[in-house]
């Protein structure tokens, strides 16, 4: 029982990170219908930036806000300068551009910070490990029914729940949220009633990238280091989460993320032949199964094709 509780909470904590990235994917997909393949790398760039802020002696609380600011900028630049102009040409061009952005950002991380894991005393890092948002010493845990739940896990889950609540409020109770929903449902009509669709789209990319930045920082904090390959698998898990929840539903992204985290941790823990190294296989099966059985996901709206 303790083990089950332990694994579930660990799964929820891991899933929170996936939920953060999946939220970004969903916000962009809702607005523009594009799947942003560079989302993980945008988050990784911000995670590197937060490391750099830490090197300059900025405390993590401020550094993470600045990192989200970097995400804000990266997201806006990507949308305005790259995606919007080619979106007029074809969906394939957008796909290629996001792949190009993926590779460019990954290369840029290596070009600026080098290919090794950071922090690394070999290249003169002042920090010992990647700054964590929550207390993460060995003694920082609470006992619930005998399971040792770390403050870090609880903090991560709490962070996602608070953020979801804020986003829920923004999407459903503010003018901005109304405009975003209008653009998502019909961009042309939205334009006709006076909504500045371009501003709204740019804002969705900015919000998505900033949330992704937070996800990147939490991922790096959990791994205690940041490296160029950090976000590859996390991106797949986040995509699986978005697929499971439905690509146009923010609620689905959060539920999907938490579910993927729990499913993965429980199968890796209890099903002996899956093991830790085939975790990504579980995500793969979830993606394939959801797309085959219910392509709209748990909370998404089914797409109606018109000829």
């Amino acid at each position, binding site marked *: 029982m303790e083990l089950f509780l332990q694994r579930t909470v660990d799964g929820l904590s891991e899933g929170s990170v996936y939920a953060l990235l999946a939220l970004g994917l969903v916000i962009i997909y809702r607005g523009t219908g594009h799947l942003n393949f560079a989302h993980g790398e945008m988050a990784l760039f911000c995670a590197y930036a937060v490391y750099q802020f830490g090197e300059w002696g900025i405390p993590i609380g401020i550094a993470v806000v600045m990192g989200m600011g970097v995400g804000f900028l990266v997201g806006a630049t990507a949308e305005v300068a790259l995606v919007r102009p080619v979106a007029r040409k074809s969906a394939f061009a957008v796909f290629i551009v996001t792949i190009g952005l993926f*590779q460019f950002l990954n290369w840029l991380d290596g070009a600026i910070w080098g290919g090794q894991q950071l922090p690394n005393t070999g290249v003169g890092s002042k920090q010992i490990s990647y700054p964590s948002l929550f207390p993460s010493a060995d003694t920082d845990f609470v006992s619930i029914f005998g399971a040792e739940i770390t403050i870090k896990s609880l903090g991560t889950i709490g962070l996602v729940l608070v953020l979801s609540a804020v986003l829920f409020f923004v999407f459903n109770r503010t003018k901005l949220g109304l405009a975003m929903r209008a653009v998502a449902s019909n961009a042309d009509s939205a334009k006709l009633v006076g909504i500045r669709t371009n501003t709204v789209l740019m804002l969705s990319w900015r919000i998505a990238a900033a949330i992704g930045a937070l996800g990147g920082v939490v991922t790096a904090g959990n791994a205690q280091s940041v490296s160029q390959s950090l976000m590859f698998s996390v991106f797949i898990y986040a995509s699986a989460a978005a697929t499971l929840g439905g690509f146009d539903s923010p609620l689905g992204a959060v539920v999907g993320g938490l579910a993927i985290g729990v499913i993965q941790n429980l199968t890796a823990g209890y099903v002996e032949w899956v093991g830790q190294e085939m975790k990504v296989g579980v995500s793969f099966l979830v993606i394939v199964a959801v797309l085959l059985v219910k392509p709209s996901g748990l909370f998404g709206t089914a797409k109606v094709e018109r000829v």
Partner: protein
Amino acid sequence: MKSLFTIKSGGAASWAMRLAVAAVLAALMLWVPTRGSDSLIEVCTTAFTLMAAALSLNLLLGYAGQISLGHSAFFGIGTYTTAVMVTRWGWSPFHTLPVAFVLAFVVGVLVSLPALRIKGVYLALVTLALGMVFPQFIKWKKLSWLTGGAKGINDTGFKFTKDNPTYEIFGWNPWGNLRGQNVKPFYFWVGAIIVLVVYLICRGVVKSRVGRSLVAIRDNSTAAAVMGVNLPVTKGIVFGLSAAMCALPGSLSAIRTGTVTADTQLLTVAGSITFLVIMVVGGAGSLWGPIIGAAVYQFIIERTGGWTEPDAIPALFRPFFGWSKTAPGGGLFAIALILLMFVAPLGLVGLWRQHSVRLCRVVPKPAGTTTISVMAAAPAAVDETHTA
């Protein structure tokens, strides 16, 4: 657009041009393995590997419009089929090529089954996940009795022994010495043959009825289905064929390097992205695109590979890349990929087609020239009805 020369397709001038291109290619193909330096031969062989892989991706993505980010997995299937069969069951390396081809075909068709229901970015997502799963699957503990786990497999290469025939032509040996020294030209030729085979298969498919239905699926799948294209069968076969062709260069890489591990760059998603970059830079949806793309890609990667220290960079480029801690190749191609989408979505071949017209225009043969008398009679009949 005005052009300097105008020549007719099928005329003497056009044939002379084709002959000149063929002669230059043939001369290069003979010069490199016999007179070129060892490193040049190596680079060319790697380029052949990339060419074949990008050609296979081009058939699926460039012609049929089915996005795949999982071709590294098919490449890896070729690599591991050869490695396993050579080391575990003692097959001769080249006999494993057909097995790899068939195995990858089957896996490709299986992957196409979900692809029949989903399209666009979702297909990209599924294949991306496939590309991510493959290295993990190889490293899986349950399979390590077969695949060697994370350590990989050694001694997968072709054995150069004293018993091998030499195949000399009047004392001259263009394929290198199969008895042990100077083996690089041999792999060069194997690579060239694989590229030729893959190119001919692609050409055969593209120029046939199937190829036209592929383009129809890409441009408008609903209309294609209405026109009588059997979507599931066509997609399944092209998926399988593309996967099968991608396994051939994979096998070659196992034979050539002699060691395989699941973390080799081309076996991970980075490999899929490399194939995609080559295809798009060269020109998606054209037969020569991936070939030119791979040559350009390998040339630039090779040239800039050592640019990790400011002193190693030529003075002309130092201001641009002097700050970078890694080689600029990946970033250069990422920028090229994005820029091409703005200026030339059809890649280098597309650019060439667009601008070569200014120099020389080739007028294509009018369609159906063999039945010209029938065509000539038809308008007359229309005129008669009008006058009547």
